[in-house]
């Protein structure tokens, strides 16, 4: 990264603009896709296909009155949305969009910055971004907000572990921690020999590290507070959770941060597991597909596919109950990640031809035994037992009698005529209100 200062500035502004545009697009996209899933048109008034709807919403929010509760902790109340937005935008700086390109005679990479441990920057930013949510809930001085903040804190701490362990397997496999280098490492195929025939698998890590990929995708939904894991802002339980007391631009900032986080997490998943900006087909099909600005198409295509996945989840799944959510995190994702990490380490030693045969067999066998033990000792759900006799309840449930005649509603007695006289005479019925008054 030896760019001139002006190029750095241009890249920084471009990353910002791309993120904001993607957020505007994603909000519209989400509303339209959910609408199609629910067989209704969705926003279609502002601009072609309603594309300007989110822009209009943003402007509306900006012009609304900014209310600060009397019980709010003023400094923290203002700082919270700033923290959320700053962390959300910073994380995107290390995502590689494409390979080296030539911009006005300067060879540069399509990436704002990269360094030895750049994946950790994204994780650190997502860890700090939670401060925005938690402090927002605390400083509002309202019960719903505080409950939302508590949920956010517990949720993010729990799911960060699973997320970190999934990322760890990528570090493990590639022995790299820089986003650009991980993308390049995935470009090489994985030669495998099955009984004499050699097959070259694509080197994308979602194939070799399939369990990590699944765990990462689940916990990234938890980390971004999106449905079905949107407990901190569960509108049916907590009004708007941590954002209940926020209005105007501050509320818009949280909205912005949430969608930027969605984009960042999708981009991180694409970078770590789906080959980053590499074309989704072998290089022999189209030799120029991975050069110049063409990779931008593949990269944003993959990111959009992930954003669609987010929307699809929201349109399909109901929100989890809080204890179910925590159980999934701590009792399923974390143990599976830990066992998988150990299995992967054993497999790597087992497949390494530098070691002697007994060591390799021992490690590979240990890995197999660990997997079998995990499957064998997996806690199974308690089977439903058919009751021996029908439950008549304690003292009997108040079941309505079989010959129940529903009494007429008192309201219908006073307002409606009996059914026999309800025949319209001279075109005016008894229900015609205009005639009665």
């Amino acid at each position: 990264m030896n760019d001139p200062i002006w190029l750095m500035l241009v890249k920084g502004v471009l990353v910002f603009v791309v993120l904001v545009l993607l957020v505007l697009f994603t909000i519209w996209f989400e509303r339209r896709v959910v609408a199609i899933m629910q067989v209704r048109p969705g926003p279609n008034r502002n601009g072609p296909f309603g594309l300007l709807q989110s822009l209009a919403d943003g402007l509306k929010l900006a012009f609304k009155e900014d209310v600060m509760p009397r019980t709010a902790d003023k400094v923290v109340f203002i700082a919270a949305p700033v923290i959320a937005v700053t962390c959300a935008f910073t994380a995107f700086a290390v995502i590689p969009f494409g390979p080296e390109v030539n911009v006005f005679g300067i060879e540069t990479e399509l990436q704002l910055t990269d360094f030895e441990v750049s994946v950790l920057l994204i994780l650190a930013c997502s860890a700090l971004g939670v401060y925005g949510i938690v402090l927002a809930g605390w400083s509002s001085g309202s019960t719903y907000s505080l409950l939302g903040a508590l949920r956010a804190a517990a949720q993010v701490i729990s799911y960060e572990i699973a997320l970190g362990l999934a990322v760890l397997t990528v570090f493990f496999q590639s022995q790299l921690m820089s986003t650009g280098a991980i993308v390049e490492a995935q470009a090489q195929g994985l030669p495998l020999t099955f009984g004499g025939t050699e097959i070259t698998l694509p080197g994308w890590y979602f194939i070799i590290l399939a369990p990590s990929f699944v765990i990462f995708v689940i916990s990234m939904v938890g980390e971004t507070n999106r449905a079905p894991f949107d407990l901190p802002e569960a509108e049916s339980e907590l009004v708007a959770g941590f954002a209940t007391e926020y209005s105007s631009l501050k509320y818009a900032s949280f909205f912005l941060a949430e969608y930027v986080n969605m984009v960042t997490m999708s981009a991180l998943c694409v970078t770590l597991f789906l080959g980053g900006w590499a074309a989704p087909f072998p290089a022999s099909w189209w030799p120029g597909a991975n050069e110049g600005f063409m990779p931008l198409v593949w990269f944003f295509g993959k990111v959009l596919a992930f954003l669609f996945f987010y929307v699809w989840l929201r349109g399909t799944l109901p929100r989890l109950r809080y204890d179910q959510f925590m159980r999934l995190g701590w009792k399923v994702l974390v143990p599976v990640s830990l066992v998988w990490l150990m299995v992967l380490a054993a497999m790597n030693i087992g497949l390494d031809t530098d070691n002697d045969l007994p060591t390799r067999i021992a490690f590979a066998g240990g890995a197999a035994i660990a997997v079998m033990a995990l499957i064998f000792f997996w806690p199974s759900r308690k089977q439903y037992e058919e009751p021996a006799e029908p439950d008549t309840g304690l003292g009997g449930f108040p079941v309505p009698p079989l010959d129940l005649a529903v009494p007429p509603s008192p309201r219908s007695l006073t307002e409606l005529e009996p059914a026999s006289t309800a025949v319209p005479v001279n075109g005016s019925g008894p229900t015609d209100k205009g005639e009665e008054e």
Partner: protein
Amino acid sequence: MMIDVAQTVAQNGISGESVFFWILAPIALGGAMGLVLARSAIHAALMLAVTMLCLAVFYIMQAAPFLGFVQIMVYTGAIMMLFLFVLMLFGRDSKDSMFETLRGQRLFAVLLGIGMAALLASGLARAVSGMTIAADPRWATGAQSNVEAIAEALFSTYLFPFEVMAGALTVAAVGALMFAHVAKKGGHRGQREHSRERFAPGSYPGPRPGPGVFANSDSTATPALRPDGSIEPASLSEYVPPRQLTAAEAAPKHTEGRDA
């Protein structure tokens, strides 16, 4: 990028590291002072988070990016968040009491604090002064990466202390769980037990009627009527005095101007 800026500034005579140091050091110190002086526990925790972030940036500046980011993720991201979680459970109005339980306690605390700081500072100064600070040549020359160097130190030289610490922390966590765990009284009550309890004689199974149910008016003062026309006592507010309108009060007032 940060390192590039550092290099360009270094060529012009000022080291970028010292520029960042003089910006961040006051912030870090301010955070530490704020931690001690803040009245609200949450503010103190936030000040500590600021100091930790500054330390992380110091690490990154000193060419230890891995350590810096792990500092942010583990200390600021996880440990301070747990702290905040616990503090928020106490409620936001809990402030330190400024009442002195021992006479002159505050004065002695300040004096002893200053003494302790002086001891630490002089000890450190003695130990550090005259030392030439140089990076390990293996990773300063790029022969070994930062992460590899840390891993080698942790898992070879300091393996035993590392394992002992891990064991001690696990034991502490399990012990805390043991103390905090309260066995549930009675067995688990399922849906059937809850339902039976709800429908048991003497308890009302449904939601209470809201005011104005089956009534001609939607005022909160209007009691709910049962389907048979009698008044549902549960819907009568104890704060609204019951009274009956006189015939004149109940008569139409012609306020709407339609039925005059």
